[in-house]
């Protein structure tokens, strides 16, 4: 009988072209390669310079998301790019995709959107796959039981040319989330709580498998939120074993297997779980019942606490500098801190249920005087679905801006950014110094917290707005 294996072991073993040796890393086959405009141009240049072909255009999928404006084109069709360089970068991906015959979800595609939103929407992301992209939030796709991780541009070139990567086998970390999340506490609160517990480097060198009753109870979108931020704990990837929730979500999507092929695939996907008795290199237990609405108070995602808990005192000058940058005060909770900007969107929280959660808070309410709120759907599909439900009307009536899909103010390279000193309550994934604009101060939060904070004008507990809001 075979030794019991973890989910990660199964994914790793099934994609080995050559196993690792003392002298050389493993060669790992890549099932799906996602591309966007920022991290691919230099890799295509390598193909051209060396006269190489794109090995598997059928396993390559591209979109425009990072440098793209979220305001509509003008009457002449001219798009309001932040800079001519941004426009040129987008044009370059369009040209590269034409030259190398890559499927591109560009401006004219009804499926365009953030790369980690559209992969699953198209059904391109499937259990059991290896998925890479020149983007650290590729870990998102691990929600489907795929081994998915971010790579650098040199490695993008390797995958374009050889559909394979050189990799050392990472270690495994099981995060068991036991119990049930309290009402109106979301997956974002959970993952911020997890990173606050294990630390911003708590996953370095490891692939995380999230498991336990609280994880199994999550929707696919919530699972994507949790896996998305695996990298914020330094992990190579985050994984959740696929189950009936996964299969139901994927069924019928354009690139998902159809008919008999679907039944066969599901049969195989059911094997994608950690065997009883399999060993992880490390294990951590988290009690879901203890999770509260959680926010960050410092300048990395590991500096996270319940919003009503006092900010912990700095343990060294580096932490003090982070508190000073944030204008956070040790001993005082983040709840009640005045807010300038609220950003709802990103590959972490730019999906339909995220927008619904925020809309539940905003329905019939107004964004506070002096607060700017930006709502950026994760994809054209999310935008269409949200508009069909009238969510955009709720946001607009509340005084928020309803934008076109893209990464927008998460990475703030498309012209959407906050001013120096402004405090942004953001549903994105990184609160690094200057991430959302030079000198801007980011507080990471759930969509409901973001919406409640927009209404209150200060960081606010969404539960006060959600109780009875569904009526």
């Amino acid at each position, binding site marked *: 009988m075979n030794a019991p294996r973890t989910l990660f072991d199964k994914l790793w073993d099934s994609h080995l072209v050559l196993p690792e040796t003392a002298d050389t*890393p493993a060669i790992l086959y890549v099932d799906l390669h996602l591309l966007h405009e920022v991290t691919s141009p230099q890799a295509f240049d390598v193909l051209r310079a060396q006269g190489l072909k794109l090995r598997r255009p059928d396993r390559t999928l591209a979109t425009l998301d990072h440098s793209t404006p979220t305001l509509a084109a003008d009457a002449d069709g001219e798009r309001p790019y932040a800079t001519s360089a941004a426009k040129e970068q987008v044009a370059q991906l369009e040209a590269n995709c034409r030259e190398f015959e890559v499927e591109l979800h560009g401006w004219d595609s009804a499926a365009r959107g953030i790369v980690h939103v559209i992969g699953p929407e198209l059904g391109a992301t499937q259990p059991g796959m290896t998925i890479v992209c020149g983007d*650290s939030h590729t870990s998102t796709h691990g929600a489907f039981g795929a081994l998915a991780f971010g790579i*650098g541009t040199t490695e993008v070139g390797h995958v374009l040319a050889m559909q394979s990567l050189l990799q050392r086998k990472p270690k495994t970390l099981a995060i068991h989330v036991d119990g049930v999340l309290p009402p109106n506490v979301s997956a974002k609160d959970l993952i911020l709580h997890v990173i606050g517990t294990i630390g911003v480097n708590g996953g370095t060198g490891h692939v995380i498998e999230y498991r336990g009753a609280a994880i199994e109870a999550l929707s696919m979108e919530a699972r994507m939120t949790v896996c998305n931020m695996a990298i914020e704990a330094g992990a190579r990837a985050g994984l959740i074993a696929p189950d009936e929730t996964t299969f139901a979500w994927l069924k019928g999507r354009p690139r998902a297997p159809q008919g008999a092929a679907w039944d066969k695939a599901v049969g195989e996907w059911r094997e994608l779980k950690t065997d009883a008795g399999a060993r992880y290199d490390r294990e951590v237990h988290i009690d879901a019942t203890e999770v509260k609405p959680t926010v960050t108070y410092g300048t990395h995602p590991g500096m996270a606490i319940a919003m009503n808990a006092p900010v912990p005192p700095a343990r060294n000058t580096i932490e003090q500098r982070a508190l000073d940058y944030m204008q956070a005060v040790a001993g005082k909770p983040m709840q009640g801190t005045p807010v300038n900007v609220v950003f709802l969107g990103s590959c972490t929280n730019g999906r339909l249920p995220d927008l619904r959660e925020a809309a539940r808070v905003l329905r019939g309410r107004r964004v506070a005087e002096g607060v700017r709120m930006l709502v950026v759907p994760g994809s054209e599909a999310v935008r269409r679905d949200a508009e069909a439900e009238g969510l955009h009307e709720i946001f607009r009536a509340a005084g928020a801006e309803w934008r076109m899909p893209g990464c927008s103010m998460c990475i703030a390279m498309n012209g959407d950014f906050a001013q120096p000193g402004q405090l942004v309550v953001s549903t994105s994934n990184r609160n690094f*110094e200057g991430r959302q604009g030079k000198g801007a101060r980011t507080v990471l939060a759930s969509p409901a917290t973001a919406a409640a904070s927009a209404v209150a004008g200060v960081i606010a507990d969404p539960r006060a707005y959600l109780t009875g809001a569904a009526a």
Partner: protein
Amino acid sequence: MKPVTRIHSRTAALADENIDTDRIIPARFLTTTTREGLGKVCFNDWRYLSDGSDNPTFPLNAPDAQGCEILVAGRNFGCGSSREHAPWALLDFGIRAVLCSEIADIFCNNALKNGLLAIVISEAEHRWLLNHSGAELSIDVREQTIAIPDGGHIRFELEPFARHCLLEGVDQLGFLQQHGDAIVTYEQRVEKAA
């Protein structure tokens, strides 16, 4: 890639922990389509004041730090975004080696593939180097040692294949290309089973 065998330089230190790749190169500079010329925006928002002049409190602006090719950085250097622009910017800025007690995975991979030595050392050695900024070090990639001024040596581990590529000055793509047949065999096996 040129071979990287030995680096001899004084050190400069950035003691902050968790220096993320957004700090190394802010995202608004990522609209470039080449890998050249990013040194001028390396650490941009830390290095310059809002009027464009040098920030006197940024350690690498100090006169002593000029020309230093070895950076001793606080724990968990290079965390966050996978942007390879970070090692490109550091190299163009003149940094050829980063010494740290812990280096983020993707940054470490990206750095080594570009000939930027990303070297993990013990916490005690790391503390010593942070406290002795400006020390003259000699890094020997073949021997995997760092000679320190008192005559002692620090040993370090380097992934053997990355070390081989650094010493020979070869791109890792060549290794994948040598195994093109194995990749074809893998594809045929998987597609037959499907």
